[in-house]
């Protein structure tokens, strides 16, 4: 009679651990939902978030341009060379233009820049807000009758959603230009041939799909940075953990969103 009891009782700690994890996961989802609701509720408070949004647009947008363009430039070069390597002897070489254009617009422009900016923007946001949280600056804002959602979160998410498509548009253009220059200088391809390939299967959807995707990446990275930063606990160690967490969560969500929009919109 005792044997079944002993057998199952050995699983109790495991079941308890699973239960605890499940409860924690549900609580986390609830907290995120609550956070998103609060952010939406703060949107009409334009008077509070408009001015800090301008500052954030400069920090997120203008300051991110060098790193984004650097990545895009080398991506364009590599894409042209790899396309040429793949197509030589089998497919007309003007398809290099097609591959560079399509890939930069639909995938590599938004995703590579998004991943790079997840590190730059997401990490700095989580660190900044995390430090504000642990040094009671967020509490101080509240006592001064500011809603942290209006003053801290909405400007950042707005700036992310608006500026990411702009930065990534520059990145796409840069990648195409460096791809064209590579074709011109290193491959045996003329400008008219490259442009012919570029135009060949172009559809306007290629442009708006990449830019729309970029806007969702921008909103996601900044939102994750804010959620993680404002839930920071402890001192410097907590800020460090939040920074790492923000980058990891953002990168994972970018890849998930990328697949999601490909399934839904293409």
């Amino acid at each position, binding site marked *: 009679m005792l044997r079944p009891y002993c057998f199952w009782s050995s699983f109790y700690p495991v079941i308890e651990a699973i239960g605890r994890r499940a409860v924690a996961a549900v609580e986390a989802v609830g907290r995120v939902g609550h956070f998103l609701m609060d952010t939406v509720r703060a949107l009409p408070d334009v008077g509070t978030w408009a001015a800090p949004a301008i500052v954030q647009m400069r920090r997120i947008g203008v300051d991110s341009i060098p790193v984004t363009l650097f990545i895009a430039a080398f991506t364009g070069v590599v894409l042209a060379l790899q396309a040429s390597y793949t197509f030589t002897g089998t497919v007309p070489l003007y398809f290099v233009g097609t591959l560079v254009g399509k890939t930069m617009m639909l995938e590599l422009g938004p995703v590579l820049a998004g991943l790079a900016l997840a590190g730059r923007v997401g990490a700095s946001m989580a660190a900044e807000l995390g*430090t*504000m949280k642990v*040094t*009671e*600056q967020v*509490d*101080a*804002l*509240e*006592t*001064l*009758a*500011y*809603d942290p959602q209006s003053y801290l979160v909405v400007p950042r998410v707005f700036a992310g959603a608006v500026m990411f498509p702009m930065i990534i548009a520059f990145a796409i253009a840069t990648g195409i230009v460096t791809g064209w220059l590579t074709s011109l200088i290193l491959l045996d391809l003329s400008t008219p041939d490259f442009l012919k390939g570029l135009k060949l299967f172009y559809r306007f959807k290629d442009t708006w799909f990449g830019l729309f995707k970029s806007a969702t990446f921008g909103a996601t990275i900044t939102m994750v940075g804010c959620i993680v930063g404002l839930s920071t606990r402890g001192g410097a160690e907590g800020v460090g953990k939040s920074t790492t967490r923000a980058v990891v969560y953002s990168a994972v969500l970018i890849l998930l969103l990328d697949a999601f929009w490909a399934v839904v919109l293409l």
Partner: protein
Amino acid sequence: MIEFRDLHKSFGPQPVLAGLSLKIADAETLVIIGYSGTGKSVALKHIVGLLQPDAGDVIVDGQAVSTLDRDDLTTLRHGIGYVFQFAALFDSMNVADNLALGLRRRRGLSDEEIDDRVREALALVDLSGTEERLPAELSGGMRKRVGIARAIALRPRYILYDEPTTGLDPVTSAVIDRLMVRTREHLGVTGVVVTHDMRSAYTVGDRIAMLYEGRIRQVGTVAEIQETEDPVVRQFIEGRPE
């Protein structure tokens, strides 16, 4: 008037406040003393709605803080200045902007009036001329004084001080004490001071309340506390290990 009514607050399984009841009359300065980790700062945060009670409430001017909606809470906060333990200055802003931020939230104040109030508040804490400096360029004592100036600039009805002299040398602590007394005399505000610095408590307090095991152990005038026969309060105010 501020009144704690049977306030309970726990963090996880750990009860911090277990039936705190206390009244703070208008225009008085009440000092809450107690051991580290006994919930003094937690009590203070309930007054401005930074924390929600598990049970009981804080009543400020007849309003139960935990039941206020966002707009009413904002209105309540307009009347309360909060001085944080480590000043909590916004480190990306200079001193003037730190003081002006709360004032910009007030309707009907022009930029000139805000500048005047900033200058006036800095003069009151003897920090005129520091407007352009960043918090990182200030000493610990100066940061605390800017924190007090930020609260004063709002011209609040209540000022809450969270450990205002912790971590400061005796002379700077005395400067902060004098500043708190001056603030009460000049502005007539009601003050709640959380501290375990007894010299500061005796200097700035009209009454002193000792928080012990989540409740008020004793409350009385400075003289009453100094002459108390309660062994727990005596041990604390004399700083005896046993």
